[in-house]
């Protein structure tokens, strides 16, 4: 149980950090596309700022998404153990992607600006997939991947 819980926490944090970095760089990409220069130092500053300041809303949303998504994968994996890695990665991918799609459907607005583009939306899925992969690796017993 402790292993599962610890794995989940690391998965959430991993997905959060990667997702926040994608948000950060996605926002900057939109700014540079408008013809404004953003230096490397400003990019790094933005990355640090965003990772440390998206904890109020985005972090809980990532946690809830994985909390809903990973158990679904677990249920499938119990019946299909050979799909363990794919199952958790796919569950994380779908969970974070679905979170953005549902928010847009409910609010009528994009809570995370870069998800207005397909690439921005897929990037959130990738962050979720990384979270799923971390959970898969860390929660595995005796290297059962």
């Amino acid at each position, binding site marked *: 149980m402790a292993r599962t819980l610890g794995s989940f926490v690391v998965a959430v944090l991993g997905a959060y950090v990667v997702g926040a970095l994608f948000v950060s760089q996605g926002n900057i990409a939109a700014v540079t596309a408008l013809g404004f220069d953003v230096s490397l130092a*400003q990019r790094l500053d933005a990355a640090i700022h965003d990772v440390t300041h998206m904890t109020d809303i985005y972090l809980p949303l990532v946690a809830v998404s994985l909390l809903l998504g990973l158990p679904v994968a677990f249920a499938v994996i119990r019946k299909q153990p050979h799909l363990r890695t794919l199952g958790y990665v796919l569950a994380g991918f779908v969970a974070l992607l679905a979170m953005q799609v549902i928010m847009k459907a409910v609010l009528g*607005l994009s809570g995370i600006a870069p998800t207005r583009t397909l690439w921005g939306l897929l990037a959130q899925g990738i962050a979720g997939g990384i979270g799923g992969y971390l959970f898969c690796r860390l929660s595995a017993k005796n290297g059962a991947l």
Partner: protein
Amino acid sequence: MITLTLALSGASAQASYKLQTLAEDLAFPWSIAFLPDGDYLVALRGGEVLRINEANQSSTTLTGLPPSYVRSQGGYFDITLDPEFDSNQRIYLSFAHGTPEANGTRIVTGILNGSSVENVTPIFTVEPLKDTPVHYGGKIQFLPDGTMTMTTGDGFEYREAAQDPFNLLGKVIRINSDGSIPADNPFADGSQGHPAVWSYGHRNPQGLVFDSANNLLYAHEHGAKGGDELNLIKAGANYGWPAVSKGINYSGAYVTPLRSAPGVEEPLTFWDPSIGASGLALYNGDAFPQWQGNLFVGALVDQEVRMLTLQEGRVVSEQALFSELNARIRDVRTGPDGLLYLLTDSEQGKVVRVLPEAADLGSTHNNEEN
């Protein structure tokens, strides 16, 4: 609905005042316009304009105005009289026009005849239409040359459009009163931008006022979190949004790492945290000599009015007023009587008049409250 209530007394650093409720139970009043006969028009966001007669304690709904797309922030916005209203009885209304899939800010004009508006005609529609029910702008301000300026919002989902001078989202536009485009607009020839654009790079401007003594146009806008700002509007100028901003996304992430940039106008002041700036008046009345030349900014979030003192084009002091109302302030205007008028934003919104402490209310309908 109509009432006269002497509610509260208060004092700013320079002036003592009292607040008088003129009308209440108004569903989300958005703007007010003062008719020469003493009546006033109040636009309700739900798609209604009331003609209120203070003396008779009566109110009628104007007929003849178009339906609006009423959802979220959409609905009726600004109601304004033509500068030549005495001779032409013409009024202008900005509102959300369209459908959930395709809507935008539109201006119509018509002739006010009692409680009806006749010959109602659309004169301008902000394009492209959008599919979000927020960030419409919609504040109208006539200039001394008879042209009309109006703010437009970025539609939230289309914030990059604010930087596109060919796109009308996130702009201050300037048109003639018949909707045609003035020949001296900064992009009038259409080669560098939309001919109607006066300034660009705005998010959701909800305040617009002209200082006729100094020939200056001021606007404020809802920024992102911590980015509400007051700007001096100049023809052809870029105000930065979303590439340059003092605010951040509500998610906590930067909108942009750029807080300033070459070629982008700096705000006269900004508010962090955001106050929810709404409504903007330049006080030029005689009732409060101490306030003359000051800007008054309504604050939805902070539930007060901010009085800004300007010197040589800079904001040198700021004071919070009227917080005793405990109400979101949607609009602030200077009336033709030299008094200040406030609209409170709620299902039971009010029209509140600010008078000098010593003023005689001269009405038998006043009820004192403390």
